[in-house]
């Protein structure tokens, strides 16, 4: 039954891989962000689990160290990581809003098509400019 004691760590591994898979495989940018969030949340679980002991209480010293206490440090560390996760998500969503404004889609393959068209346009504009220059010169 030892594996049951490591239940949190199995969940961590499963969530981590699910998150990476979603972030890499989905074409929809919003779903990618959801995948990233699941991935980051799995790491929160790893840190928080590592600080907990069965029967441990909060580390508030009242009358000496007579009871088991949970390690507060990983919990504090992960607060920072949660804040970082929120910041990353908000920047990602802000970028998605601007991508939607620029290309009118949030699907990766459609964006790639739009970018190819945009690049062709740039080449044509350059070619036209060259032609104008040649006409002016002549």
């Amino acid at each position, binding site marked *: 039954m030892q594996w049951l004691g490591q239940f949190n760590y199995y969940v961590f591994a499963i969530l981590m891989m699910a998150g990476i898979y979603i972030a890499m495989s989905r074409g929809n940018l919003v779903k990618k962000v959801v995948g990233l969030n699941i991935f980051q949340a799995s790491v929160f679980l790893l840190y928080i689990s590592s600080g907990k002991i069965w029967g441990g209480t909060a580390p508030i010293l009242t009358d000496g160290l007579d009871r088991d206490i949970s390690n507060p440090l990983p919990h504090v560390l992960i607060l920072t990581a949660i804040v970082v996760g929120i910041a*990353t998500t908000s920047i990602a969503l802000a970028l998605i809003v601007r991508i939607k404004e620029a290309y009118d889609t949030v699907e990766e393959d459609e964006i790639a098509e739009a970018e190819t068209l945009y690049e062709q346009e740039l080449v044509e504009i350059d070619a036209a400019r060259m032609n104008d220059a040649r006409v002016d*010169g002549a």
Partner: protein
Amino acid sequence: MSTATHAGFSLLANLPALQVVVPMVAAPICTFLRFRNGPWAFALLVSAAVFWIAVTLLQQVLTHGVISYEMGGWAPPIGIEYRIDEINAFVLLIVSGISLVALPYALRSVEREVPQDKHHLFYAAWLLCLCGMLGITITGDAFNIFVFLEISSLSTYMLIASGRDPRALTAAFQYLVLGTLGATFILIGVGLLYIMTGTLNIIDLADRLGPVSDTTSVRAAAAFLIVGIALKFALFPAHFWLPNGYAYSPSAVAVFLSATATKVSVYVLLRFEFTVFGGIEAFDDLHFARLLLPFAIAAFLVGSIAAIFQTDLKRLLAWSSIAQIGYMALGIGLGTPDGLTAGIVHMFNHALTKGALFMAAGAMFLSIGSTRITNLAGVGKTMPFTTLAFVLAGFSLIGVPTTSGFISKWYLVLAALQHGNAGYFLAGLVLFSSILAVIYIWRIVEVAYFREPAGGAVVKEAPLSMLLPLWALTLGCYFFGLETHYSVDIARQAAESLLGIAR
């Protein structure tokens, strides 16, 4: 060195904290400066102060040895320690120096490429990015590295997306996904190390890892850390975010990032690989460092070959960066004092060289409005000073003698030759890759000097505010190519101290 809580405030004693705190506090102030050129002037002032601090710190380290600064007066390993030895003092100097040189250049480039009402936010992000990179470099605490890494990454996404080119948005998003994966991998690695040792202080980690080093958890931690860091410094095959990120961002951002961001990540790799894992016997059997070699070789071959086939100058330079990262990884992968010296010297030399090249490309973008190679026809006649600087810095990229690029390749080849037959093969590959560099630099020279300008639109030489930083870096390539005393000696000391802590 003690904190000055009881002895009053002493500026010199608190320089390590100020190195990070000055740009961090300056960034929000910058967002309030909405008048014309205000944010720029303020960022320049802050960069100058930060550069002065970095120079002073390097001098202190070189004369008095390692500086250990206790954040808030809490002694390590409980408190966060800022620990400055030769290697990170050197990286601090590179990062703050490049920021100081790139900012004068940024004035005109940003005016053209970033909307006027966003300038205060742009320079605030610049300062935050600077703060993050300096923090990664200066701190002696593994979790602190992650926090500063995310500060610099988040502001980098903003900087890349701040231009007018819509392709920059997708480039920034792509970088965000890969960058977050990389940073979170580093977080997992640090977490596993903390679970096994109960400490986050890097020196303390190295001490305590010994007894538990032969466990799956520590090996997994090492794997997560290396993969995470490799994602951040765009080592092949994790390089996909880099070409678009550098090519479509505003020119000044490409200069700043290409010269600093990857260097800082290389430093983090050095720190973990040598200071933390270096002394562990269980890892000696794995030939930990050598795992990098195949990726390093693939990086400089693929990077150089891909650079030859690019149609856009900035993308060409970005692919060349991937190749140069390969050289640095090769030096580190060899794991000998000479190899490390070569890798560290190349960090410095490549910062100068690629900074100059991206500056020249940005100046051409400002005058011509495009960096597609066909549009650069005759640029050698219309923009003689910019193009000449580009060609001279290009020589340094190739590794022509008298340039700094030659110095780093020289040491790299020497280090490779110490490895017998495999070494000859490695040295041959480095030389082959240099020939590829000749091809892609020559493509630009050919278009710039041997084709007639299209005529029509009048192309003007770049403004003086761009030419001066460009020439400063270009001449730097030659100064440090002839006077190797500073860069090579510091790099050798840094390499020896990295290996010295290890063994």
